[in-house]
């Protein structure tokens, strides 16, 4: 794909003025009414009282002013920031954002006629910003990797980034109409691209590596505090629980696909195995096994059953080429689905109640802590779903820990070697089969574990929760987010699960979009949105340039850490 390069001879001073002017227009516009109808996009109808979406516009304007102020300034502490690229990203993003909102207002109120002056002014402001930003001259920046702030400052910045991310997710969760959600996404996307183009994320990746333990802990705390943003209501928390289950499964799959490089197309069956074990051994009226040990025992049994199935499927296929594994796991997924569908007493023993599934599974009770009731934490209320959410976040943290510890070890190196050149790895004494089966059965174990919790957290366990479609969603989360990275997969899983919940109108096109996204991703960015450096290299074997860059980053990082 060749996009013709637009060449505009730079006029930095004019550009700077236009950027600033556009930003001011935008801010002013945000204070005016955009629509006469107060029901659209959360009331944009009152002048002088900006609604959240207008507040985003103000932030964009302010950032635009800051960017304009930075043009020509040689601040040594910010010499790594790419003003021009980031300003362009900001301006274009702002334009998209405003157009989206204006379109929505016009669409809902019956025509462009019904846009109030504020909406027009915002559009003009955004256009002026775009014009200005493209007149800026390209800047040469210093290597972001070498930026090394005071430790506390770095930690504060990283924490703020995490908090902003959380805020964004919470905001999207709260949104109740597609238009607002889409607009919020556009705003989030704009700030994301702005930071990316400016070079912030390049720095962040290295800085985060410097403070890994602090960051991990910070992320965990942020995730655990999330229920507090929901004021004890359960509507969003039930979505959050779904996301958390999906995330646990995706992280487990990430060990299999991302680290060991094994394509597992039936991974959801392992989650299902855990869920069914959990359901059949629960004290539900419809449970089919008479033995009801404490949950910890059930969880272990579910995970082990899953792992044993993994061994049965994996041991014949892992000796052969990886393609066979892919197909056999796919077949296994189908076997699982057919089997739980059939075991209803007519076509097989009555274990799963067939298509009806096992319903009415009671809430978890761990050490006297009842997950079904609400608990008070100071002035905050932790609701039913919040309990599960917190448990699932802890499980996810466990999986992430296992993931990263395995990754940075003898075992992890073995996996990389296998991905690089299986025969050579074998000839160097790496236990190929053992390592593959470890990843495969280990992944199954973790999915099984998550499944046993899912059995209690969801109303009922039914076969149709565990179809090939679900497996492919999981795979999509891993691939789109970035195989072999925790952050990428977490992002992928959250986005993939959250968007369809909030953007009901894409429901029909969801599969189509995911399918095409997989194809396009493999073609243009196989390493995923947030790439593991190693994976990036593997997928771009011919790119010598990339190899040099990655190596330089690696060496810099080694020096920084030494």
């Amino acid at each position, binding site marked *: 794909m060749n996009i013709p390069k637009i060449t505009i001879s730079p006029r930095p001073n004019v550009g700077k003025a236009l950027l600033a002017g556009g930003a001011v227009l935008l801010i002013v516009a945000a204070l005016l009414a955009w629509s006469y109808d107060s029901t659209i996009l959360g009331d944009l109808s009152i002048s002088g009282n900006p609604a959240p979406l207008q507040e985003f516009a103000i932030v964009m304007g302010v950032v635009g002013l800051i960017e304009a102020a930075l043009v020509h300034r040689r601040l040594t502490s910010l010499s790594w920031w790419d003003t021009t690229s980031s300003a362009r990203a900001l301006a274009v993003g702002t334009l998209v954002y405003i157009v989206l909102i204006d379109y929505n207002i016009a669409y809902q109120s019956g025509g462009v006629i019904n846009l109030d002056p504020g909406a027009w002014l915002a559009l003009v402001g955004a256009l002026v910003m775009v014009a200005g930003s493209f007149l800026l001259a390209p800047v040469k920046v210093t290597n972001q990797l070498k930026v090394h702030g005071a430790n506390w400052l770095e930690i504060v910045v990283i924490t703020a980034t995490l908090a902003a991310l959380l805020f964004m997710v919470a905001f999207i969760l709260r949104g109740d109409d597609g238009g607002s959600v889409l607009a919020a996404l556009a705003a989030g996307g704009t700030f994301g691209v702005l930071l990316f183009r400016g070079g912030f994320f390049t720095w962040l990746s290295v800085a985060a590596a410097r403070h890994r333990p602090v960051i991990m802990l910070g992320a965990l705390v942020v995730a655990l505090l999330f229920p507090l943003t929901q004021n004890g209501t359960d509507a969003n928390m039930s979505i959050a629980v779904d996301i958390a289950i999906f995330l646990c499964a995706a992280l487990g799959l990430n060990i299999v696909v991302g680290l060991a490089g094994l394509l597992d197309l039936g991974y959801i069956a392992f989650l299902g195995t855990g869920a069914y074990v959990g359901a059949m051994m629960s004290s539900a009226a419809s449970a089919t096994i008479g033995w009801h040990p404490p949950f910890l025992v059930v969880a272990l049994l579910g995970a082990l059953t899953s792992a044993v199935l993994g061994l049965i499927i994996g041991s014949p296929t892992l000796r052969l080429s990886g393609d066979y594994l892919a197909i056999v796991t796919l077949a296994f997924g189908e076997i699982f689905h057919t089997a739980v569908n059939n075991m209803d007493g007519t076509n097989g023993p009555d274990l799963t109640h067939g298509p009806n599934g096992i319903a009415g599974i009671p809430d978890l009770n761990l050490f006297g802590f009842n997950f079904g009731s609400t608990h008070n934490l100071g002035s905050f209320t932790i609701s039913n779903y919040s309990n599960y959410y917190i448990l699932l976040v802890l499980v996810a943290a466990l999986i992430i820990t296992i993931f990263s510890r395995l990754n940075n070890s003898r075992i992890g190196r073995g996996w990389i*070697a296998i991905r690089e050149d299986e*025969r050579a790895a074998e000839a160097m*004494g790496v236990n190929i089969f053992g390592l593959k089966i470890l990843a495969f059965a280990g992944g199954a174990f973790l999915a099984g574990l998550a499944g046993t919790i899912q059995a209690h957290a969801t109303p009922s366990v039914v076969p149709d929760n565990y179809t090939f479609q679900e497996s492919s969603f999981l795979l999509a989360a891993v691939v789109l987010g970035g195989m072999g990275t925790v952050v990428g997969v977490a992002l992928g899983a959250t986005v993939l699960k959250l968007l369809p919940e909030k953007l009901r109108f894409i429901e029909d096109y969801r599969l189509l979009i995911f399918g095409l996204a997989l194809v396009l991703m493999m073609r243009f960015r196989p390493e995923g949105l947030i790439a593991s450096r*190693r994976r990036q*290299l593997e997928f771009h074997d011919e790119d010598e340039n990339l190899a040099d860059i990655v190596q330089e980053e690696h060496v810099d990082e*080694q020096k920084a850490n030494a």
Partner: protein
Amino acid sequence: MSTATRRPRDTEFASGKGEVLLQASDVLMQFGGLTAVKDVNMTVHEGEIVGLIGPNGAGKTTFFNCLTGLYKPTSGEVRLAGEQIPPKPRKVVKAGMARTFQNIRLFGNMTALENVMVGTYCRTTSGVLTTVLRGPKFHREEKETRAKAQELLDFVGLGHTTELLARNLPYGDQRRLEVARALATDPKVVLLDEPTAGMNPQETQQASDLIFRIRDTGRAVVVIEHDMRFIFNLCDRVLCLVRGEVLVEGSPEQVQSDPRVIEAYIGTGDDDDFDDDDVQEGPA
């Protein structure tokens, strides 16, 4: 760089000198109708450097593949230090034999150090639990592995490349890195497949230096090479393989002067030999 000890000139070629380390008997390898290796016998003693020569397509690499378990020989057996070794690469390495490849097969996207660390895989034992729990054993072993890998990099003269990606290294360095990776498996016998292919005279000199130093650590080395000067200077004993069979075996002097060897080499240009040429693996 230290100067290596020259080959002890006072000994005749080493049979009967050290213990027998590697013994391949009647190794036969057939691919369909093609016999690539035919009843080859080879004995290698402790501290010995053995050369394997022969025209293109003679079956030298295939013989290495049979020794290291990459191919399962049609018949014949391979013994290492008296024990018969099964044709499974991992078991072969574990038993103490490691190799390099004619067409370099490094892990390109790993750093030089990581490549060598992979070589230590079979001599280290940290399992899942140790790794996940990060007990003291994990840290100790990781530290030792790292130190050993760095030591080996220094040994082959790549101490400065620790953090560089293998794929970014120059050709000659890649060959040496493969040697370091093989040494990391603590082998008793090292098999080198054309270690100087594509090297300039100076690098070739360094390579023979390196091979002597490997020998001086008490290991036996088997080298495949087309460069006769290199082989005859280096080896205690040379086998000449032609069309899968051992044509001549003896001291460098004996092999060098054997008319059959000369004829085999001059014969390489002939049509029937040319047919055997392996398309996939021409020397780089």
